[in-house]
């Protein structure tokens, strides 16, 4: 079962940046890439729980601000040689530019 919630507009997320959504399941990071794709991850680095929302976004990755692990935005997977996953959530942008988040369905930890 999905449960889509309105979060903000695309403009409210900086390009190559992120916003944090406070939710019952903890903080969720919503990222915006250079070509306006939007991704959502739990704001919790698989290494030591660093807030991924505070990292530097490039291509489809974010570099964790704590110790520099690189996490794939679409998969939540850490880049080699590191191993681990942040869990992903479904997110979409409608024609009006509104960002929606499915807070029910955690897209299970994606295979590496």
């Amino acid at each position, binding site marked *: 079962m999905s449960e889509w919630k309105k979060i903000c507009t695309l403009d409210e997320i900086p390009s190559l940046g992120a916003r944090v*959504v406070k939710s019952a399941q903890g903080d969720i990071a919503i990222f915006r890439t250079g*070509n306006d794709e939007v991704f959502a991850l739990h704001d919790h680095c698989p290494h030591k729980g660093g807030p991924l929302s*505070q990292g530097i976004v490039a291509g489809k990755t974010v570099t964790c601000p704590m110790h520099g692990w*690189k996490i794939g935005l679409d998969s939540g997977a850490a880049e080699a040689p590191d191993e681990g996953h942040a869990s992903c959530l479904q997110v979409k942008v409608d024609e009006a530019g509104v960002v929606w988040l499915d*807070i029910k369905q955690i897209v299970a930890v994606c295979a590496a």
Partner: protein
Amino acid sequence: MKKMNLVMVGNGMAGVRTLEELLKLAPDLYDITVFGAEPHANYNRILLSPVLAGEQTIQDIMLNDVDWYRDNGITLHLNKKITHINRKQRVVTADDGTAVEYDRLILATGSNPFILPIPGNDLPGVIGYRDIADTDAMIDAAKVYKHAVVIGGGLLGLEAANGLKLRGMDVSVVHINEWLMERQLDKSSAKLLQKSLEDKGLKFLLKKNTAELVSGESGRVAAVKFKDGETVPADLVVMAVGIRPNTALAESAGIHCNRGIVVNDTMQTYDPRIYAVGECVNHRGTAYGLVAPLFEMAKVAANHLAEFGIGRYTGSVTSTKLKVTGIDLFSAGNFTGGEGYEEILMSDPVGGVYKKLVIQDNKLAGAVMYGDTVDGAWYFQLLREGRNISDIRDHLMFGQSHVGDLGHTGHNRAAAMTDEMEICGCNGVCKGSIVKAIKEKGLFTLEDVRKHTKASSSCGSCTGLVEQLLASVLGGDYSEAPKTKSICGCTDHTHAEARAVIRDNKLLSIPEVMDFMEWRTPNGCSTCRPALNYYLISTWPGEAADDPQSRFINERAHANIQKDGTYSVIPRMWGGQTNSSELRRIADVADKYAIPTMKVTGGQRIDLLGVKKEDLPGVWADLDMPSGHAYGKALRTVKTCVGSEWCRFGTQDSTQLGVDLEKALWKMWAPHKVKLAVSGCPRNCAEVAIKDVGIIGVDSGWEIYIAGNGGIKTEVAHFFVKVKTAEEVMEYTAAFLQLYREEGFYLERTVHYFNRVGMDYIKQRVLEDAANRRELHARMIFALQVEKDPWVERAKEGVLKHEFEMLTV
């Protein structure tokens, strides 16, 4: 569109490295076909010696297996030797008749062992030492035969002899010269080496000229006969008297060769469609026989094949290490010296230690070390960087740990460490895992090790140890010379090139720079973006806009992120001075925002730790104190002592000068953080000797010291100049720091910049050229005028509000 055909002849180390580099740059440009005369995929030839010695297996030394070729869409023909190139029709033909057309051709045919032109050189049991087949032949011979003779006492010959000995043979090494490895060692160190090898059971026949190889009854070689008439028994003869570039194929196709296939700086032969890389090449008159230069060639050839057209190969300096376990030997550069060279020598024949450094024009030109090679990597780095060593000359011989250049593990010797011992303290990587990764993953350079193990990728203080491990496993560290090192994997350009392009073409934004310099990734990465952002704002203050998304979180949020995701706030206390109302405000803020920890920092000010991100603007507004930039590559603190105002020894008002300097330089962004200190007398209570700029008041004025550092590697600041007035201190300090801001590479602290350019250069730009000094000072003032207090902007003017506002569902 049909892709172009790229054909490569020779499936060895240089060729495959070229393909790897090419695939990184332009994965879809070519259909690639590879021909290899050997029946094996690509392996690490330099590790044949440990295989022979029984320390590793062929499996361990594979670099790219057949799956790699398949995964990258490369057609691989093993066991096929190209015998003909038709340059008109652009077709190559192999010995089994396979013919393939090419648009571009790479010749990477390596070299052949030189076989002495003497009678008997073609007898069974006489081999060179080049490939897996030779290695297998030696291993097999050792099982059934007793006597081995290795002709040639160079690197290869000694490694072969050592391996055969370990496999149980009785081994003699024949050498025509008076001492071993005369191309790498001088006589003294060679004698020490000979002694240790004799202790391992090897025999040496020096100054011997081989006349003939004599066969026995079976038709196999049985003895070696010398010109002086002496004969020694030999069931196996290994010729290791040198290599000859393998140019036969190129010559037969009419490509210009002269002791190697002649190439230009873009690795093209006289036929521009045909490239050549590796040991088969003659570049500017030199044919190389070690891996490091070949990798640099590979990078350049790949760049041109990818049609980027920017790299140039201009030759290499090489270093050597003998891969015989238990023997420490290192040599690099020109170590024979001669006219115009100076030598520093240390010799302890009884202790088995010998070191020689050769110096030319205040730069290290070469080094030979035997017995204690801990500092090999460091000397090699000084050599490749061309660093001016006049300031460390006194201590140079005693190694890195004696020039105050100490990492936390600076005293350990990598070779003597056990596998469980930790090398990288930041990432918890031990020696065993690094050695394993080097062997199993086929790593060659410091960057490879950083990428695969994380060792040395954080604070960098273990870099020297990692370099030693590379050298002891591989016989060398094949990292690129710093001046050709690219900023990161997104580009082949160096920091210096990026700085120059931004200045010369007046580029004002990161996308412009990436476009202009043909970045490979759409928006760079967390390494290059912050660097480019700094280069832009420091080159074009007020014109290039700062990009917060290209700044590390601390500089984006203007507070330091803590391990639990909260932030710390350190307001500025000019020169470490405060007053009761400031302290009261700080106390009130701490209460209002329930700040859990308050601490006096090492920089004479107060840290409020554990502030929630959303509270930051409120905290700043209520504090009503300037940003301390404790989070930035910026001016941090100006530490002061009480000075002449209170202290009974004070000769100058150091507190006031500190406050003035801090107010003048506040808000300054720099390649890395900048710390100053001012002491009122030579007792030096403000610890100026470890600051980027340190000032000591004396009766007759002020002494200025520069480029100290108190962090990971402690470096004592160098005396720069003595001036009379406080105004002069301001001008000289600002001018030096502006020079650093304009020329420093991102993440280079003043000490690194100083080491790179040298004191003479800085003196020339700041002291000798008064007009230039004033211009530098003026440019600093101009740059700082456009900067605002980031806390005020965010607390009171609503700048970048979204950074501090959380969303909810």
